[in-house]
């Protein structure tokens, strides 16, 4: 090290008031001594990354219904690789031959229409980066007391970001011609449960996509191959996969997915139906539960998103919520998409709790755990979007830092929703 760079390093270390914390061990790293592997038609991840996979709860009674969590503890950026996008199926993943696939628009239309994939793909398309989030994301937050070993993946991994390409549903509806009584679009999937959900016509005319591409390639089978609905900002379960028809109606279906499931119990004892818009969330993915950090500099990283529009602010606290600093939002900051945030931080080696809190362009603020349960009931299953806290222990190990609910008698409460996790008790 020459004198100048030594002085520079020393100044930087002194300015930060900390000594250099050396973690890197000296190791010569030569270039490869032999030829590498040849060209291959389909790329694969490095075998050293094989552990980065979706999390599937070991307690599911069946893997034909349930959810696989995107490994957000280990992902960065606002686009998730297609094989790691979270997955939620209700009756398994059907295998659909794209030549046999058909979409029918019928019911209260002037001209019922059937499209094959080739016809659909000839129509005008749009591409948008959107998050899709299962309404059951955050379900582990309903557990009381909070589970110490929670990871970011198990806390909020039922969300993913992708670029979706497809035909605006508006075009198909205009082609078929809506009758004046048309109020609802009852979308049906071609999976074994023929999943049905009701969408107001206005939403379908505004921004719903009939999507056939995910990050540029055909949808993955578990994302609805060959065609799914993308309903930006709304809960994932309404974004019907393996789309086979849209029945235009004057009444909603009140299907199982909008009555006994995906409805919300509120703290006042009422049950809300059609809780569609996903409220603002953020989560620190690094450092997060299950990870271990070292003393000194650590960039805090995470993602935020809201079904109401763009994220405008994420505040981060590194002292358990006493003081808050504004995190830097990484471009691009897109409407109803994952937004990445970072904050430079030096960990002094003392136990502390770190938190993040998102605000969206509609002015909605992510609630604390206590604020959340003033509005939503403790035996609700969906739409948990409270702040996730991480406790950094003196060893550098990170555990769930969520506070238990103060002053409430709590019967043991099993978390529910989407069959993402089945927990004991």
């Amino acid at each position, binding site marked *: 090290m020459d004198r100048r760079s030594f002085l520079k390093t020393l100044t930087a270390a002194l300015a930060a008031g900390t000594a250099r914390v050396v973690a890197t061990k000296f190791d010569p790293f030569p270039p490869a001594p032999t030829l590498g592997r040849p060209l291959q038609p389909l790329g694969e991840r490095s075998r050293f990354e094989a552990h980065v996979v979706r999390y599937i709860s070991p307690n599911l009674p069946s893997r034909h219904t349930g959810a696989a969590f995107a490994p957000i503890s280990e992902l960065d950026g606002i686009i998730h690789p297609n094989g790691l996008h979270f997955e939620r199926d209700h009756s398994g993943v059907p295998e659909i031959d794209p030549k046999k696939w058909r979409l029918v628009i019928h019911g209260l239309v002037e001209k019922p229409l059937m499209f094959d994939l080739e016809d659909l793909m000839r129509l005008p398309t749009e591409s948008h980066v959107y998050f899709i989030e299962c309404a059951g994301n955050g379900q582990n937050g309903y557990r009381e007391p909070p589970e110490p070993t929670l990871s970011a993946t198990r806390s909020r991994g039922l969300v993913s970001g992708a670029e979706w390409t497809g035909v605006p549903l508006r075009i198909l509806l*205009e082609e078929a011609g809506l009758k004046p009584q048309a109020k609802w679009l009852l979308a049906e999937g071609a999976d074994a449960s023929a999943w049905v959900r009701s969408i107001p016509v206005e939403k379908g005319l505004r921004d719903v996509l009939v999507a056939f591409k995910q990050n540029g390639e055909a949808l993955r089978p578990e994302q609805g191959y060959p065609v799914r609905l993308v309903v930006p900002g709304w809960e994932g379960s309404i974004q019907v996969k393996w789309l086979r028809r849209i029945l235009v109606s004057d009444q909603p279906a009140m299907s199982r997915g909008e009555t006994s499931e995906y409805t919300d119990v509120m703290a006042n004892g009422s049950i809300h139906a059609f809780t569609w818009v996903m409220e603002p969330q953020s989560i620190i993915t690094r450092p997060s539960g299950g990870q271990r950090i070292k003393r000194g500099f650590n960039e805090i990283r995470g993602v935020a998103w809201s079904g109401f529009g763009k994220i405008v602010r994420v505040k981060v606290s590194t002292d358990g919520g006493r003081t808050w600093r504004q995190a830097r939002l990484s471009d691009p900051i897109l409407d109803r998409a994952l937004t990445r945030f970072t904050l430079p931080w030096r960990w002094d080696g003392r136990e502390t709790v770190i938190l993040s809190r998102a605000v969206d362009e509609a002015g909605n603020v992510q609630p604390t755990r206590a604020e959340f349960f003033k509005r939503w009931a403790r035996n609700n299953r969906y739409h948990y979007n409270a702040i996730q806290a991480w406790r950094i222990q003196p060893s550098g190990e990170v555990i769930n830092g969520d506070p238990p609910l103060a002053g409430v008698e709590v019967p043991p409460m099993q978390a529910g929703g989407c069959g993402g996790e089945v927990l004991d008790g």
Partner: protein
Amino acid sequence: MARWFLLFLLAPALASGYGLGLPLSPDKAQAYDVTPIVLPDGRGLPEGEGDYGMGFEIYSFECASCHGPNGEGGPFDRLVADAPFSLDLPPHRFAIGNYWPYATTLYDYIRRAMPFQKPHALEPDEVYALVAFLLVENEIVPEDFVANRETLPGVKMPARKLYQVDPLTKKLFPWIELP
């Protein structure tokens, strides 16, 4: 300017639509409706009927292994409520008698998604019988109840009074009412 000119040229081409997609006759559209969507007012319900006795037999054979011999739940959901709905009731005890707001949903869901391993295999009479069995077990209708397209829309479910449209949704779509 150039853009306006382009639109002017395109307008006649688009006026009649894109000309894609196969127009369906009502018959053809009907043939595609293999899993009719049942609405709370009964539209979509087929002819046929079923009662508790028949339902009990089908339930024991097709459903009990997953949902328990008496609907108390097993590897999968509890179907028969063991308590009224309350804020202290854990979600795994939400069931037809305390959480489901419409009896028509039972028909729709069983018809389209159950039994889990071989869906859309039950005949309308069998589905009606299962619905009758589950409504009786949940103490919503008397034991001699016959489920059919006339009776189901009229069944008052105990949970219906708890339901309302999400207030945010109501703000976005003021016309939305629950059936």
